[in-house]
């Protein structure tokens, strides 16, 4: 029997009155929840941030649905309580709880935590602590739940390694239920925790960090790997899992409809997976290869069913590159026809310069004319070739012209500062590009309305990511970043153009986390003990705390973020493989230096990244991409 904490939680919320913000975060029984109170085996899926940020997360939704499909297994969701609630819970002796049955997280058989971005690391510790689960795998006993992790950060798992019993690399649809079944069987047989972990380490796509010793940097370079397995029968390289069934599986799946107001509160239909445009800084583009599309019929049917079951008034066609879908126009036309006169809108997560025509604009926006966003990322053609962002100035200007002629008045352009090989000319190039885009917008806008034009450039510091061709490149120092942004500001002559700049503090910690080895885990714990959590919330983040934590743990903060290596350097994540050959990363890095581009394999030929051959997978399109 699971404990129901709701009476205590309800009383806490009632008694606290308005001193606890948004009590709706802690209610459950949302529409569309799956309840399996009789299931003997219970799994809790955690998003390591507050309800508002986590509820819309697709990994949580997909994995809970997959586990709930298993007979006798229940999956529930959990989020990190905000500080006001966490304090009140600690004072009242209430541990972190799940949504569906409001049960203590520590009572579940297994807990899965998705790791969406580097700044969530301290929230993992916050949640484990509130749940009363020992932070490190070495301190957990037979009575503690199995703590599992997955998601993008597992691409360099080392800074998280000591906090997880088991990590999963790649797509979790199959491997998660597989591991949970194994766990259930072994629990029934009374297998010890140590033996369970050993058995799980043999499952493809699974990394059990405690079963590997970490060697010194010098030794790692010699051996070609930072880890040494403690047993002969566990792999030395862990390869990611791919869910082969994605393209043919039903695009419809149950979705919880929250009561709380969220930023992106709508029905999500995942229409394709993967993007092989091959931007050299982009981790997601490397992670979800190869590209797999679902069919138009599947998608349209799923949107209709999903809307009628949830009552949402918006459906978003999600993926890394929605407009690349070979049937996207057909899909949008069919959906628009179906939902005419119901106030339902169809949206796509981001617009692409090179495939964004006026037709597409009309199809996604309906009557609305919100802001448009485009991401040229770099200011000159040379640098865009370096990063393999295959868009030209003309693409940008055509898209801007088309959209302003069609009635748009606001446009935001995204850029990165500090990309490899960047010079001052590239920075000035951003100013020039934005100003000329403004001129194009002005020409396309009737004279009387030109005062309404808003054009802005949003800049962020480049963060080198593990498992990308730029993984060896250091981040530029923050002082240099500030010099460059000032150069940009001074280069912009038009008063009507806004330059937004994200302070580099957060990006520095991201780079350190993205590139660090297992020693960084101590830094994460030290930072959390200093009060760091909800680091993705600017007002809660403190760069000093992170630097102090590094100093205490003997980790070189600047060096970890900023050092540049040759491409034959073995990084701390070399044992984790996306199926992409190191040779491919090296070749791409070399082509970057030569400012030579590599085409998208879904439009042209295979460029031999290695995924399809290595993992026995293949591109699955529904038609010819054009």
């Amino acid at each position, binding site marked *: 029997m699971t404990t129901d904490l709701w009476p205590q939680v309800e009383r806490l919320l009632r008694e606290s009155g308005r001193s606890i913000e948004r009590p709706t975060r802690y*209610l459950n029984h949302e529409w569309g929840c799956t309840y399996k109170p009789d299931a003997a085996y219970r799994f809790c899926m955690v998003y390591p941030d507050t309800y508002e940020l986590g509820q819309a997360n697709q990994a949580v939704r997909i994995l809970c649905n997959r586990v709930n499909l298993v007979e006798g297994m229940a999956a529930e969701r959990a989020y990190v309580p905000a500080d006001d609630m966490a304090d009140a819970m600690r004072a009242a002796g209430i541990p972190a709880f799940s949504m569906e049955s409001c049960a203590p997280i520590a009572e579940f058989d297994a807990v899965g935590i998705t790791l969406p971005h580097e700044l969530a690391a301290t929230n993992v510790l916050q949640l484990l602590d509130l749940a009363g689960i020992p932070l490190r795998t070495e301190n957990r006993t037979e009575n503690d739940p199995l703590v599992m992790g997955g998601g993008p950060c597992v691409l360099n798992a080392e800074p998280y390694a000591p906090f997880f019993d088991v990590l999963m690399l790649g797509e979790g649809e199959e491997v998660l239920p597989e591991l949970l079944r194994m766990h259930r069987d072994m629990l029934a047989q009374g297998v010890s925790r140590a033996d369970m972990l050993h058995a799980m380490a043999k499952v493809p796509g699974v990394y059990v960090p405690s079963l590997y010793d970490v060697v010194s940097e010098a030794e790692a370079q010699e051996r070609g790997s930072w880890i040494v397995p403690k047993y002969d029968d566990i792999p030395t390289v862990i390869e990611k899992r791919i869910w082969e069934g994605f393209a043919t599986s039903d695009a419809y799946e149950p979705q919880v409809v929250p*009561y*709380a107001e969220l930023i992106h509160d709508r029905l999500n239909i995942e229409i394709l997976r993967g993007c092989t445009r091959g931007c050299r800084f982009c981790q997601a583009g490397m992670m979800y290869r190869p590209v797999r599309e679902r069919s138009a019929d599947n998608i349209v049917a799923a949107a209709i069913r999903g809307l*009628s079951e949830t*009552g949402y008034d918006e459906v978003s066609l999600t993926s890394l590159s929605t407009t690349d879908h070979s049937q996207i126009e057909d899909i949008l036309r069919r959906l628009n026809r179906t939902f005419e*006169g119901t*106030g339902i809108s169809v949206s796509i997560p981001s617009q692409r310069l090179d495939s964004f025509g006026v037709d597409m604009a009309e199809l996604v926006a309906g009557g*609305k004319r919100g802001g448009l966003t485009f991401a040229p990322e770099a200011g000159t053609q040379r640098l865009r070739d370096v990063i393999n962002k295959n868009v030209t100035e003309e693409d940008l200007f055509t898209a801007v012209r088309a959209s302003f002629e069609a009635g748009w008045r606001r446009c935001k352009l995204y850029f990165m500062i500090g990309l490899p090989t960047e010079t001052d000319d590239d920075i000035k190039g951003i100013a020039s590009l934005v100003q000329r885009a403004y001129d194009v917008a002005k020409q396309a806008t009737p004279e009387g309305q030109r005062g309404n034009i808003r054009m802005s450039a949003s800049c962020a510091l480049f963060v080198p990511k593990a498992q990308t061709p730029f993984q060896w490149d250091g981040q530029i120092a923050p002082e240099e970043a500030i010099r460059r942004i000032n150069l940009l500001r001074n280069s912009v002559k038009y008063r009507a153009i806004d330059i937004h700049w994200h302070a580099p503090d957060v990006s520095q910690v991201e780079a350190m986390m993205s590139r660090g080895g297992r020693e960084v885990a101590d830094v994460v714990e030290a930072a959390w003990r200093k009060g760091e959590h909800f680091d993705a919330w600017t007002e809660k983040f403190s760069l000093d705390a992170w630097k102090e934590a590094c100093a205490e743990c003997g980790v070189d903060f600047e060096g970890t973020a900023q050092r540049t290596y040759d491409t034959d350097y073995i990084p701390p994540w070399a044992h984790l493989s996306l199926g992409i050959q190191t040779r491919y990363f090296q070749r791409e890095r070399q082509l970057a230096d030569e400012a030579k581009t590599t085409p998208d394999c879904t439009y042209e030929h295979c460029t031999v990244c290695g995924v399809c051959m290595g993992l026995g997978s293949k591109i699955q399109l529904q038609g010819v991409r054009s």
Partner: protein
Amino acid sequence: MMEGEFKIRVTYAMRGRLVMLSHLEVARALERAVRRADLPFAVTQGFSPHMKLAFGAALPVGVGGDHEIFDVTMTEYVDPDEALRRLQDASPYDLMPESVEYITREVKAASVAYPFGTYRAVFDGPVDGLQVPDSITVIRKKKEKQLRPADFLVGALEKNGNEMLFTLEAKPSGSLRPDVLVNAMLDGAEDGLVNTDLGAARSDTRLHVVSLMRIAQRAE
């Protein structure tokens, strides 16, 4: 309401954990229930078309209602029993429609239809010691304001064991929230002071509210 449009008034109960929802959250949840029920709702014209819906007087967070109302404008006539059945199938238990009736254009808008609300507060102990204070300090738009409960209470406040029953009138100039009144009474019982800061620390020997519901609403 245009010619050829029909308006229904839906009465629903809001209870259980969903009394924690804010008015905006309730509004959104009800709109989604109407969509799920697939009623032929009318949509406004213009750039961002939305459902023609109107809601009754708001309830404060933490206060439920046995017979709350909202109005939906429809483009087709649907048998009220059928409409109710569809709404019920599309609603969570704690936000459940209980009746549907057609209303004419002369009927007052849902938000001002019922200025008189009767509330039942249930506590975890006898309420004999609780007194209505002469005056309550509330914060409105960052300014302190004194409200006299006597100006809003209609008839006598009844005490019965662990329960209290009272009726409040919403005035065009403002209203007294039922939860504010109840908390002021609790604070008065505890330390002789009136404190409407709901977050203030309190000793644990005091009475606790178990539930606070608007059990009836009327026009006069």
